[in-house]
């Protein structure tokens, strides 16, 4: 469904953030992108919806080459790609409901959005999503009154109300505590399964990625150095992605937790 072909990004400073990425994401697949800071994870997902302009290659979503689109067509293509951000990126001074409904901006005209007169179907869907993530009672609270975990749930609703085919998720748990991190990852992967959504999740917590995601791609210096299932991610592979470090504890911990979860189920 999504193909990246030789996707390249060189910043004006000469930094080669992406060096010819080739990647195929089939419909409905959730994929975790791991790698050290500065490996190009964030740049890669931003090059797909062109918040960052790629300098070469192609990103093809359902046969449409996103890198070639003019501004109108790009807007329409962005509706198909929901994005979830590291620091939640909610508009702080708007209410929860306004933030969720802002996911429909690509579908409604200016005056409707300016007057906050959204179609009833959008409003209903917003309520349904807020209910699904357990925040229905918060609908009219201002976004800056919410806790981190709650904000990220609103961010998820905002991405999903776009009715996207693909979710681009940038470090969803980086500012959250371990328990909330797991809840958010579980929520994202569950919602993707429910809706048959594909997702690319940037994440620097390897253990968390292994716990929830069936396919892991490792990025180093803008190149893919690993692509496989979580249990193929050995200590040697982690060293290749991140550099020399004692990885045994990380991997062991994950296996321990995996069995815990299986036992619980």
């Amino acid at each position, binding site marked *: 469904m999504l193909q990246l072909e030789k996707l390249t990004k060189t910043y004006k400073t000469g930094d080669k953030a992406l060096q010819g990425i080739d990647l195929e994401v089939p419909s409905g697949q959730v994929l975790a992108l791991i790698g050290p800071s500065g490996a190009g994870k964030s740049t890669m997902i931003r090059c797909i919806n062109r918040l960052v302009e790629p300098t070469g290659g192609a990103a093809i979503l359902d046969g449409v080459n996103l890198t070639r689109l003019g501004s109108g067509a790009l807007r329409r293509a962005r509706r198909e790609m929901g994005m979830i951000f590291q620091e939640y990126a909610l508009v702080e001074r708007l209410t929860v409901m306004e933030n969720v409904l*802002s996911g429909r901006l690509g*579908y409604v005209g200016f005056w409707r959005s300016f007057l906050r007169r959204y179609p009833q179907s959008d409003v209903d869907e917003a309520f349904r999503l807020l209910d699904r993530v357990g925040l229905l009672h918060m609908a009219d609270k201002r976004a800056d009154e919410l806790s981190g975990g709650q904000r990220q749930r609103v961010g998820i609703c905002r991405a999903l109300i776009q009715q996207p085919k693909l979710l681009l998720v940038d470090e969803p748990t980086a500012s959250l505590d371990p328990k909330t991190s797991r809840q958010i990852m579980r929520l994202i992967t569950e919602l993707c399964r429910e809706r048959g959504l594909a997702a690319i999740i940037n994440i620097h917590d390897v253990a968390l990625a292994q716990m929830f995601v069936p396919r892991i791609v490792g990025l180093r210096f803008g190149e893919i150095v690993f692509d496989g299932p979580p249990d193929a991610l050995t200590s040697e592979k982690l060293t290749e992605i991140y550099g020399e470090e004692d990885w045994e504890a990380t991997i062991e911990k994950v296996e321990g937790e995996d069995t815990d979860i299986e036992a619980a189920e």
Partner: protein
Amino acid sequence: MSHRELDDMLGKGWRKPHFIANPALRWGLIVGFAAYLVAAVMTIEVDWARVYAGLDRGGQFILSFTRPDFVTRAGDIWSGLLESIVMTVAASVVGILISIPIGLGAARNIAPLPVYVICRGIVAISRALQEIIVAILLVAIFGFGPLAGFLTLSFATIGFLSKLLAEDIESMDKVQAEAIRASGARWMQWINYGVQPQVMPRLVGLSMYRIDINFRESAILGLVGAGGIGATLNTAFDRYEYDTAAAILILIIGIVMALEYLSGIIRARVQ
């Protein structure tokens, strides 16, 4: 190795490094500045005899504040005040409405370069020309009266508000705006959802402050014939009616303080 370095440093005392590292340059600048200050003060000529003579008049002026005369010229004061208020409100509304698009255009992070250059140019012109100079020019064109004052204040509001609004937009949180863009919003929707909520409190605060400034300026503009309470004040001075002048000044101070209080309340509400 590193231990020997540490041993050298222990017990050595620590001072924040000087802003200017070169001691000769640093002391040169300090001594030079002090010398200039002394020289500058010494060049100011004071005619002490004149000051002594003038103390009397100054005293009269200040004493008149103890018996301000609101009554004798009540009609003039009232119509002047009303004219000033009308001028202030009209100029502020028009000025703020024009400032918003120019402020958007003058923010480098949202405007394309040609628009940015034009809008920054407008801001620079408006800020370079002092209100009094603009008022003298506009009085020459439109004649005496509040129209010239209204236009002057609108023009000055544009320079002030556009610049500060643009700076607030430039320092906004990029990610919030990015999130709105990622949803496929149009440009106008992006401004309305991603930018406006971030700058609104500051825009309201600055607008209130500008209304305050415009009212005070309207008292000055009268001195060059641009109408308002300033014209009444000028007439009172010309007739040596210090008690009426004192009444007018007290009214101006009162209104400015009321505006200050009001803007405090409003700013607290829009946070």
